């Protein structure tokens, strides 16, 4: 009797979360889907007719889409490469016996807590500015021509900033994983005369594979939606050279008020994210059982 009661109660306690998330996910998504099939511009009142897949056709054949698709790809893979490689290196370093390890950890972790607009503006103005930035002063001091980062390599500059933000996350997750490594295994390998490289490739790296997969998938979810860093540094330019899909949809929707086109883009973005999400869910699902 008590169990039936508590089961009913448990269901009621779940209800608010489920209803809210359902509403948050289904209602707007259905609206986006609906908008993506109509000709609807906020600047052109009254003009809302069904146009089939025309919005998708325009969005997917727009050269801007191709450019931002590949920018998104470069941005995500570039940041992943830097943060995973750097993160593994940092994790191994922080796992060693060192003096003041807590302080080192605190310093490494700090960039993750800096809000995106602050980190982007600090890097853009105070470090990467070609006239007054610290890198420019440094280049002149060494006798080089200062680099105009955001004019010459806008996307790469954004990759650097975003990598700086996400390196701590990768390092922290990988450090947690490394610390769960069985020390006896390493000692046994030492006794067998294994060098540092074979220890790394045959013991450490396989042990980390799970955590690396998790970092890749989680970062990808967030990196697909990079927005603030682009808005405050390049606004997607010059041209479309630093526009990613998220930013492209933002400009179409809220700067050009093209509800139909922006919605079609939104649905495309949802499909791309879903492909990543499926892999992530599998990984987490496995963990839930084990």
């Amino acid at each position, binding site marked *: 009797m008590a169990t039936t009661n508590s089961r009913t109660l448990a269901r009621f306690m779940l209800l608010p*979360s489920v209803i809210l998330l359902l509403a948050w*996910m289904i209602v707007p998504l259905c609206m986006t889907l609906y908008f993506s099939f109509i000709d609807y511009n906020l600047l052109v009142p009254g003009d809302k007719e069904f146009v089939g897949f025309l919005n998708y056709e325009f969005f997917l054949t727009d050269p801007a889409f191709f450019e931002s698709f590949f920018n998104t790809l470069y941005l995500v893979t570039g940041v992943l490469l830097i943060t995973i490689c750097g993160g593994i290196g940092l994790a191994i370093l922080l796992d060693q016996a060192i003096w003041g390890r807590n302080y080192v950890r605190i310093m*490494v972790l700090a960039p993750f807590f800096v809000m995106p607009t602050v980190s982007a503006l600090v890097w853009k103005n105070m470090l990467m500015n070609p006239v007054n930035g610290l890198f420019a002063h440094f280049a002149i001091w060494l006798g080089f021509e200062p680099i105009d980062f955001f004019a010459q390599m806008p996307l790469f500059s954004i990759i650097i900033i975003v990598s700086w933000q996400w390196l701590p996350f990768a390092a922290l997750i990988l450090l947690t994983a490394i610390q769960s490594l069985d020390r006896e295994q390493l000692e046994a390998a030492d006794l067998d005369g294994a060098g540092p490289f074979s220890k790394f490739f045959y013991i450490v790296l396989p042990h980390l594979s799970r955590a690396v997969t998790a970092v890749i998938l989680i970062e990808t979810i967030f990196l697909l939606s990079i*927005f603030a860093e682009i808005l405050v540094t390049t606004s997607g330019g010059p041209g479309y050279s630093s526009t990613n899909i998220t930013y492209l949809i933002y400009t179409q929707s809220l700067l050009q008020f093209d509800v139909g086109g922006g919605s079609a883009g*939104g649905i495309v973005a949802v499909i791309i994210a879903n492909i990543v999400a499926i892999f992530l869910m599998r990984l987490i699902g496995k963990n839930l059982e084990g």
Partner: protein
Amino acid sequence: MTIKNSRRSKLIYTIAAWTISGMIFFPILWTLITSFKTEAEAISASPSLYAFDWTLENYRDVLSRSPYFNHFWNSVVISLGSSLLGLLIAVPAAWSMAFVQTKKTKHLLMWMLSTKMLPPVGVLIPIYLLFRDFALLDTKLGLVIVMTLINLPIMVWMLYTYFREIPNEILEASRMDGATIGEEIFHVLLPIALPGIASTLLLNVILSWNEAFWTLILTAANAAPLTAFIASYSSPEGLFYAKLSAASAMAIVPILILGWFSQKQLVRGLSFGAVK
């Protein structure tokens, strides 16, 4: 011989670790230092780490010339408000999933996570239009609602993993003693779960404080939290490095301190339990 060797390797590792972590931390340190410089010193061609006239002028200017405190307060209300509201909704859900498991529990958890993976641009237009129609644009209430919803899955998930660690026997014992469900939750479960609830709250305050998609899109002058206010420095005020630094320093220092307390929870919360 080996002891001497291990001392030497410890020294080398220490130097390497401090150098690299110093480089990673440098942009933040540089921002903090620049915030105490005059504008002229901030763009000087021979910048200095300490040999300049330290001044609080920038902090005074930022606080007096812009409605800085207003935006700071918006950040506090939005991040704390959404986290508390989120707890109110998430604690019961996590409790029921952790202690009254059914076959559907796992699927439900996964489904909740999947909502977190929905890219914001997928719902950008409807949310914007709904906010416009319900007069929620540029209001704190609107942002509290959005923040609560986007962080709800992480909250439920984190709380679930904490609640799962509470031994069921304790709850059963209290039931044997005739405790009602309410008593069970408030006198038995909550005191044990409080550390987990506190870390969930902390992580969510941090995540909402730094959220920079919806805050930039849904706010203007009124309800803009610090993320959106700092974005207004992108041009041309960004040329005033010392003021940008002072405004940035005040925006990031409180959360840096909170963040250092929540290191461990960060792994648990952001990896959705994939890494423990």
